[in-house]
């Protein structure tokens, strides 16, 4: 059992990863985990500010949001959601491999995660490029969203409110993509360390905390997807 190995490491204080100011590896691991969750709490509040803005403007400009939402590519959006879910699965498997001490498996699953993350970013790039080509970028002189409000086919889209939708779209998916980029960087480092055998069943905190970060970014997308891609699709 890995836990008994860890217990031995506790008692003998021979764990090289144990820092001087902790009494035991367990105390250190719990502190690191708690710290990571607190960091994720700050991330909830960070994205929370934008979700709050989204909620208010969607409530105000629901029709224009619906019209703007339909210009997003639902096929690419769904694929990207699936890609991120797969990456969360590979992360979970990487942590499991660390728990069971399989060095190569850790590296392989981490690499798979990075690849999936890059695929996500690539698809996101394609979508962004399309928005630039369709003149759907807010604050630009040539911004134009054709069409009408879904519920009222004779009511043309309000250009100002459509720009608000795309402002939120770029701000929120952009901030999410930035987190993905940071995640890819982080995981590249973890892969390197894992390949060099830095992690064992008694010490894999960086992989676990990196995994928590990745899952969190995934959860943000789980909300962004319906909120941006799936408004008024049925009309």
């Amino acid at each position: 059992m890995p836990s008994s190995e860890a217990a031995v490491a506790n008692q003998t204080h021979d764990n090289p990863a144990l820092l001087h100011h902790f009494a035991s590896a367990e105390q250190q691991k719990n502190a690191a985990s708690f710290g990571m969750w607190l960091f994720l709490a700050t991330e909830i509040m960070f994205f929370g500010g934008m979700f709050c803005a989204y909620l208010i403007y969607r409530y105000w400009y629901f029709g224009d949001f619906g019209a703007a939402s339909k210009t997003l590519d639902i096929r690419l959006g769904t694929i990207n959601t699936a890609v991120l879910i797969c990456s969360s699965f590979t992360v979970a498997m990487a942590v499991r491999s660390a728990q069971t001490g399989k060095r190569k498996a850790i590296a392989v699953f981490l690499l798979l995660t990075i690849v999936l993350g890059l695929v996500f970013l690539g698809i996101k790039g394609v979508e962004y490029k399309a928005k630039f080509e369709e003149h759907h970028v807010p604050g630009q002189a040539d911004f134009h969203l054709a069409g009408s409000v879904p519920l009222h086919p004779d009511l043309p889209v309000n250009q100002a409110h459509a720009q608000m939708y795309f402002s939120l779209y770029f701000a929120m998916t952009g901030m999410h993509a930035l987190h993905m980029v940071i995640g890819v960087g982080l995981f590249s480092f973890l892969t390197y360390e894992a390949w060099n055998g830095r992690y064992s069943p008694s010490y894999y905190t960086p992989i676990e905390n990196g995994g928590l970060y990745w899952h969190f970014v995934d959860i943000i997308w789980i909300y962004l997807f319906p909120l941006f891609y799936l408004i008024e699709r049925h009309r």
Partner: protein
Amino acid sequence: MATAAVGELGERENYLNREYGIKSWLLTVDHKRIALLYLAGITFFFFIGGFFALLIRLELMTPAGDLVQADTYNKLFTMHGQVMIFFFLIPAVPAVLGNFLIPMMIGAKDLAFPHINLLSWYLYILGGTLMLYTILAGGVDTGWTFYTPLSTEFLKTQVITAALAVFVAGFSSILTGLNFIVTIHRMRCPGMTWDRLPLFVWAHYATSLIQVLGTPVLAIAIVLVALERLLHLGVFNPAMGGDPLLFQHLFWFYSHPAVYIMILPGMGIISEIVCCFSRKRIFGYTAMALAVLGIAVVGFLVWAHHMFVAGISIYAALVFSILSYFVAVPSAIKVFNWTATLYKGSITYQTPMLYAFGFIGLFTIGGLTGLFLACLGIDVHVTDTYFVVAHFHYIMVGGMVMAYLGGMHFWWPKISGRMYPEGWGRLAALIVFLGFNLTFFPQFILGYMGMPRRYWDYSKAPEFQILNVLSTAGATILAVGYLLPMTYFLWSMRYGEPAPDNPWNAAGLEWMTSSPPPTYNFDEEPVVTWEAYNYDEIKEEVPVAQ
């Protein structure tokens, strides 16, 4: 630092004389050394912000706008606010005294994440450098609040670098708070249960909660401002259907609780000092601990009282007005319990205690005038006048800076291993108290008479001059009061009497180790078997000062 003199005396190894050289400071992960790094940083920014304050007061000595132009004046009060709030008040007590004392008070060797602690300091310095760049590159004139659409659509000044500076400093603040929370949960020594924690630690726990939960919302608000300027996104832009008031909501969601980031650690200090110098257990320990948590939580429910005249819904304004009154309950518990602690205490009037008395009185005035501002009707009358300026300076300068100075005097023997000169200390405390009141009390009257804040010229109302001259005179006295402690603290590092381990015969783990403490704080891990503030078990009085 004092290390050379310490070495000559042949004292034992401590955190100051263990290693020498620039590298041993800049790469240290010792929370005590990082606290001193912060001390250097915040002192520097205190004088930068103080310099701007001095220019503001000089301009207002005469009714005409004769010393600086309007644009310059706008920059002066903006940068005074941003420097003082983000680079002095918010980090002052937590990052200096909190950093130094929390691990010792709970019997730990260090904070839970020493490297992140050092990272926080570097982020603080990076943010500070950006702020200095902002100042040198022409300044910023948004007001410290960055209100949209002024900050996004109209100004040509250094808004983005200022926003970035605040963002980075905010990150530093988040990491400090995160570190404290984990430390207080996970690093307490055997026997140090939650109900034995010093109230200083409780106050920092509440502060950290605000830092962790509030700061990210400020961060996203100013990131969106920067994105509006850089990429023309329009989340707050009325031209795209945006609501500038949303920025104010997000901004004050953090910035009102941020007021409690500034005052709660001060309350922690006062609890320690009042108990020590009246030789009594704190009155109502549990109520005091719950009160700081209560202030932290209720503080999140009141933010829109900054926006009563901005055009928010009148019904929401009523709700926020009522909720704002609730902050008075835990605040009053604090003040009444300090007073009750003094009752029948054996009180001595050393410098820290003088500052504590100053704090209790001035905080009460600041807090009560806060109730005026929570009241919807009166707030409409005095919004954006000097009444508001006087109110929050009574909390932040009269409260927080008093507490900070009191704490610095109280723990200076522990930090430096030297005593400060008690006579000079009492004199400085008196000067600060008088100078402060002369500066800010006239501003209450000015504001109630209708003098608006942020005006550089009041030549249409020359009757305001006499009170403004009094205020400026007070500011000069206050400046002397601040320079004095800095001078004798520096002096004492070389020439002060060597401090005993427990110069006040105070309770608390930090006094049970040597002065200055060894690198890992305690030679043996302490085991606590007593309640906090067990002054009834300590027979010695506070030694009488020369």
